[in-house]
Structures are given as C-alpha cells and as structure tokens.
C-alpha cells in the first residue's frame, strides 16, 4: 500500500493507474460532495459520508444503458439455456443423444456456456450499477467497546451466583453429584450404540480364502493357471483363487466378493533360474515352484495394489506411494514407506499340472496394523 500511496504523490495526472481496486476512477463527471476535511457534511444520500463521489447525471445515464445491455445479454443467455436444454433430447430408446460422450460434451458446453454468460451478465450489470451509477463514499462507524463495564460484570456475576445459591445447586452437593453421576451412562450410550456398526476384528484380517490345494485363475476369467502359462522368464500374472459355482467360498455365482478379491489377489511372477537372492530363506524358497513365486498384490503400506513389475530388476512398485519390493528376495521393502514385505503365498502344482496354493499367506495381507506381525 505504501508503494501505491507513494506514487500517488506524483500528481493527479496519472492517478488513474494507481487507484486502489474497488474505488471508482476519477472521471471528469465526478464531483466531490463532501471533502475529507469535512466529514460531517450533509449530502443527499442516507449517510454523513467522509468522502462522497457522485457521478454526473450524464455519466449515470450512460452507465444505466451499459448495465441494461448486460442485463439483456443475461436474459438472452438465460433463454439460450432453455434452448440448449431442449435441443439435446433425452436418450430415447436406441437413440443415444447425451449418452454419446461427444454429444454429451456439446450439451455440457451449451448448457454451461449459456448459464455462465447469464450469470456473468447479471454480475457485470450489477457492477456497472454499483460503480458508475451509485455514488461512491466511505462512512465511519465506531467499533463497539467489547468488554462490559465492571458494574455490568459485577451485577451479572452477583445475579448469577445468587440465583445459583437459591436453586440449591451450590449448597447441596448430594443433589449435584448424583445428578452428574446420572448423566454418565447416558453420555456413554451413543458410543455403546455404535457397537453394532461392525464386527470385532478378531483374526479376520489375518486369514484369507487361500488353502492347500486351491487352484488359481487369471483375474477376470475362470481359467485355471498352469505352470506353463508362466514359462517365460519375467512373466507376471494377477491371480485369484478359483471359486466353484455354488462353492462355499463367499463367491456369488463364481465371482469372488470384493472383500475376498482385496485379500486374496496375488502376483504370480516367474523369476529366472538363479536370480533368487541369498536373502530368501529356505522356507521362502520352498514356497516357490520352479521359479514361480506368489506375493500378495496389496501393498503393506496403505493398501493400494502394487501393480507395477519391472522384470529386469525384479522390483514390484506400488504406484500410489512408491513402496518398492524386491520379488527376488521375499518381496523385501527396498524403497518407500511400506513397513513390511508383501506376504508370500506358498504354491505348488496338482496332479493335472495346475498351479495351486499350498496354504494361506505367510502373514496378514494389506496395510500393516497393530497385531499384523503377531501369530494367531
């Protein structure tokens, strides 16, 4: 503000360039009714204004016309909005209108464009009105003295305590305390009533559908996976357990529920011969089958699918927060915020050559929680 005021001193000649936003330009038609030196002076408006800049009648008449043009534009745009609404008919049978994304876009632009113009026209007209027809002035108004006077405060305090004493609340502790006591259970009731919003966690988060002998299918199909499907080095498949039609695995009509999908989804990865790192324990190696290793796809950070696999470095990357796991070393965390490795699923093949699970995951899947690393 200082800078502006400074340059204001350069004279009225270029004052218009430096005027504060929100104040009218010092146009020729403007007259000052009451100067700054004369704050109490009367003028025709409702206020004893400190500074009043009224516009000349001619200027006001011109502004009225400008505002009227804006309001007319707004009116026409408003009509245009209805035209745009009815110009794009609803989707009659077999005739997609706005259901076609391209036509939908046009409809959106036509509706939005006309509506925006209508709103803008009203805004512009009102602004012209406020700035070029109405006189501009500032008025002063006292801030209220906020704290009450000591007498008022004293009187209030006195009244309040007298009344409290009279009620007996201060003098009868038994009444007071039992009343407070009686409130406690009622205060807790709303919390207790929330108990049935969901089941207790128990060990639900630690177990999945996977069990010994369960076959695997490619995501989105019912096709069981054979070892040969992962013959190529570096191959990667997202897989689910195979749920039979009507089988008791929580699936409806051969589909896994989203809950089960979120827990059972695995990445099957073929690691080339000899690429497994020494960090893999013997048990972890036993859980693999001919270089095929299965890890939970759900990131142990906050649960996004760790969907990106780079075959060269054997790294699994979660695109949400970039936790990176080494598939050749028990899905150890090699970068990023995840707390623990992706749980590994023990796998093998059955008599017909289909890949099967040999049990449940080594650990709880999904985001790490309090007792995730505890046994049952």
């Amino acid at each position, binding site marked *: *503000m200082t800078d502006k*005021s*400074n340059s*204001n*001193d350069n004279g*009225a000649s270029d004052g218009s360039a430096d005027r*504060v936003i*929100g104040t009218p330009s010092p146009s020729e038609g403007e007259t000052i009714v009451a100067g700054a030196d004369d*704050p109490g002076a009367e003028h*025709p408006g409702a206020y004893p204004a*400190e500074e009043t800049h009224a516009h000349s009648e001619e200027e006001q008449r011109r502004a009225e016309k400008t505002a009227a043009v804006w309001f007319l534009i707004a009116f026409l745009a408003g009509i245009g909005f209805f035209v745009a*609404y009815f110009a794009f008919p*609803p*989707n009659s049978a077999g005739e997609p209108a*706005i*259901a076609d*994304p391209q036509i*939908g876009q046009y*409809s*959106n632009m036509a509706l939005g*464009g006309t509506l925006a*113009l209508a*709103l803008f026209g009203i805004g*512009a*007209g009102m*602004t012209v009105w*406020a700035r070029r027809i*109405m006189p501009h*002035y*500032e008025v*002063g*108004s006292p801030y209220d003295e906020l704290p009450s006077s000591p007498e008022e405060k004293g009187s209030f305090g006195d009244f309040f305590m007298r009344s409290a004493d009279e009620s007996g609340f201060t003098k009868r502790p038994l009444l007071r305390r039992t009343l407070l006591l009686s409130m406690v259970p009622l205060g807790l009731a709303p919390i207790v009533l*929330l108990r049935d919003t*969901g*089941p207790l966690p128990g060990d*639900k*988060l630690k177990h999945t559908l996977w069990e010994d002998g369960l076959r695997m299918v490619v995501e989105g199909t019912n096709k069981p996976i054979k070892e040969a499907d992962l013959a190529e080095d570096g191959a990667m498949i*997202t897989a689910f357990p195979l749920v039979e039609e009507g089988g008791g695995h929580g699936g409806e009509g051969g589909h896994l529920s*989203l*809950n089960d999908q*979120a827990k059972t*989804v695995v990445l099957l990865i073929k690691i080339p011969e000899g690429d497994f790192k020494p960090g893999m324990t013997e048990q972890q190696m036993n859980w693999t089958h001919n270089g095929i290793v299965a890890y939970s796809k759900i990131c142990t*950070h*906050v*649960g*996004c*699918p760790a969907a990106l696999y780079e075959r060269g470095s054997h790294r699994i990357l979660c*695109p949400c*927060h970039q936790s990176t796991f080494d598939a050749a070393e028990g899905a150890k965390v090699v*970068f*990023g*915020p995840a*707390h*623990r490795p992706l749980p590994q699923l023990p796998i093998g093949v059955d008599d017909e050559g289909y890949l099967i699970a040999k049990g449940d995951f080594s650990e709880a899947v*999904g*985001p*790490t*929680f*309090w*007792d995730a690393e505890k046994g049952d």
Partner: protein
Amino acid sequence: MSTTTQAPKALRGVGNWIDDRFHLAKTGEKNLRKVFPNHWSFMLGEIALYSFIILLVTGVFLTLWFNPSMAHTTYEGSYQRLNGVQMSEAYASTLRIDFDVRGGFLVRQIHHWAALIFVASLVVHMLRVFFTGAFRKPREINWLIGVGIFTLAMLEGLFGYSLPDDLPSGMGVRILQGVMLSLPVVGTYISMFLFGGEFPGEDIIPRLYMLHILLIPGILLALIVAHFMILWHQKHTQYPGTGRSEKKVVGTPMFPGFAIKAGGFFFFVFAVIVALSAFVQINPIHLFGPFTPTAITSGLQPDWYMGFMEGSLRIFPNWLDFPIFGYAVPTGVLVPGLVIPGLIFGGLAAWPFIEQWITGDKRAHNVADRPRNAPVRTAVGVAGVVFYGILWLAGANDILSHTFSISLYWTTYFFRVAAIAGPIIGFIVAKRICLGLQRRDRETLEHGYESGTIQQLPSGEFIEVHKESSQETVHVLESKTEVDRIDDEAIASVEESESDGVEAPAARGLKGRLRAKLAHWYTKDNVSFEGVEAHTGHHLHHGAGHEEHEEMAGSH
C-alpha cells in the same frame, strides 16, 4: 435525487406486518448501515461463502438421482462403453446423472469445481487473516471456527470424492482405511466399525453419504453462521489508513453500496465456476471405470486439497517404524497420515494463543497488521506455506518424475530434504525481507520518498530529490508504532538476566524463562520507529517538489 421516493405501499405493508411482530425497525436500520471496509482481500472469504451456497444447491440436485448403494449390478445403461460391466449402484447412478439426466453432467461438474474453489478460497482467506494478524484479540474464536470449517471442508471433500465409487475414489477410501489401520491398538476396531467389516464391505458408501450430505454440511452450515454472526457483532478488521483507527471502522455501508457490489460478485463467482464446469472437465468418472480393490492406474492424483496428505505419505520413510513386544507401530503411515495434518491444523488453531502468550499482548486489535511489521509471524507463516507446498508437490512426484524425466526415487530424496530445509530457508528469507521493508518504511517516513528527480548542487554534487509522502502514506507507515507488540517487561528481564542475573517476576521459572526467550526472539530484530517523526530527515529537499505537493493536497 433531492426528493426521497416513498416506499411502495406493499413494501410498507410487509414491513409493518413484520415490525408489529418483531420490533425490528431499529435493529434493521443498524444492520443495513453496517460498514464493510474496502479491500480486495476481504473478497476472499466471500468467494468461500458463495461457493458453499453453490455447493448446497447443486448437491441437493445430485441427490435426486444418486443412489448411495454398494449393491452389485451389471450396467445396462445408455453409456455404451461400460455396458455389461459389473459395478456398484453408486457408480451406475453416477453414470446415469452424467449420461441420462440433461444438465446432470454440468451440475456434477459445478459441484466438483465449487468444492475445489471452496477449499482454495478458504485457504487463501485464512492466509490473509493470518498474515495481517486479523486473528488477534478479540477475534480468536472466529479464527478457531475458521480452522474448524477448513478441517471439515477437507473431510467433506474427501467423502464426496469417494461417493461415485469409481476407481480413484475407491482408492482414496482404501488409503483412508490403511491410515486408520495403522493406529496402535484401536486401528482395526475403528476400521471394522466404520466399514461394517472388512474393506470394502457394503456399508461404507451409504455411511459416507450420510456424513457428506447431512452431518458435515449441517455442522459446516452452523459454523459458517456462527462465523458471520461473530464477524457482524465484532465488525471487520481494516487496514491502516487515514481516518481508520482502533476505535472507528471506515468503509462502504451494507445498504446499498455493499449489497449491490457483493451481489454482483456472487454472480461473478458463480459464472466463473459454471464456465470452468462447461469447458474444463474434471473427474470424468466414466473414463476411470468402477472401483475394484485390485486394479490401479499410475499417475493417480487426488483433489488438490488432499495433495499434501498424499505427498507426506509418499516421502515419509519407514526408518522410524518400530515394534512394541511384536506389535507393529508403522510410523511411516502414522506420522504422515495423522501427525503431520494434526500438527498443521493444531498449529493453526493454537497460533493466536501462542503468539499472545509470547508477546504478552492482551490488547484488542481492529487495525490489521502489515505483514512486514510482524516479521516473525510472517516468517512462521511463510515457513508453513513452504512446508505445505513442498508436501503438495511431493504428492505429484510421479508426475514430476515423468514430465521432467527425473528418477522417481530422486524426487523422493529431494522432497525429503526440501520438506525440512525449505521451511527454514523460507523463514529466514521472509524475515529478512520484512525487516528490509521495515527499514525502507522508516527511511520513507523520515525522509519522504525518492522522487526520481536528480538535481545538481552549486558545488557540483548530484542529489536525488526526496519529496514528502502523502498523508495516507504517513498514516500507513505510522501504524507500525501503534502496533508494537513488545512485552517490555519480559524482554527487559532477558537482557537484565544476561547482564546482572536479576530476573523480573514474569520471567522466573522454566516457563517464564522460555517465554522471555521467545519474546526476545519474536521482537529482537524489529526496526524501531521510536522517535521517528514524519519528514524530519535531512534528505528531504523541499524546493522543487514543494509546489507539486501543494497541488496534490488540494485534490484530496
């Protein structure tokens, strides 16, 4: 203009009818006369209010068709590309709004754009209030309400974003659940109760819907009403200037000036939001597909106001994770997901009281500070903005890495360092700039301003002519001396105790000493304006500039 128009009979009738029942003539006039100081920065809060109104109206429209259900359905609607796809009713009904309801797509876009602008204007409005010290006594409670509105607005936005059950929206819920699970001991219980079982279950969208359209907007509305009632009662702060003082507010009265300007501004805000909705498409949920917990695309970005959370989750390392008796404490989730936002919101809420405690300034303030005149506060604010901004950028590190072909991991390393170094540098730089501006102010006050006119003295020396600043400028510059907030006693005691070991009573004890140290830190560098009289400096050369100055004074 000279004769006042008689109020129309019908209006008088209604007015009398109301007044007979409420006795409102006096109150009504007082409120129509309420003064609104003029400054562009006072419009920021208005933008927030107007976008909130737009959100309420468009939100009601969307509820007419939206079906908050996670029941499975196979889509058989008019959007051909998703025909036969398994999805939730919520997603299917959102597609219906987009492709079967005329104007539905537009209203959904308006709702989303208004939400983005609502939170953005809240943030900028808050920064204005912070940097000008408008949160000081007596306005601390309104500041707290504002922090509450900001926090709830973010949650409200997150929940709304989650409702359509498209892929990114479901992933947002998943991340929320992951953060919840990280809470020691109670995490799994909270998650199970909120989701009605395991993730995703079938309850979360109906529950978020209730929170999004009933509970949170209800609280927001109540808080916004309280915010305005308090503002109305206490009146606005104002910037320093001629005629403005701690006792008197100067500005445009509510009626007619402000009402018409504000009305026009409402239509402008609405027009901009609608124009953006018409021509800049956001959140095209039909392109994302329905949520499944096992699929994801790379380059996912949340709405802007959740970006800092995303960033802090991305860059916070897992080095500090620790176990307690085999139980996991994943600080790599807890700290960025809960502690950092807790610090940001808690810090905002606590600042007015911290500052008051440090400075011992218990006076009421109606004239806003110029940010330079509170250098430490300004610097703290800048440090906060830098910290927030770096987290926000870190939330897009994959996009940055892709766009500028930088290694993804290196962006993470960079942001880890920047999140700590950035705020410190920001603090130092901002404080130095403030102090520099203070010195310049002092110079200007004492010597007038540099006119740009060079004169040669008879001795051959060249000098630049300084001219007297305007009344307004002097007033603004002198506002600093009025607002010095030095708790003299506390400061003096630090200096004393350093010299002769005698402590003032206020500075005794650990707390007292800390407070005195902080007060010293808060004020030590301030450029003193004490004893500086306007235009008394020796640089001031009347002569050439004087006539011009006379002219100026006349035109005021």
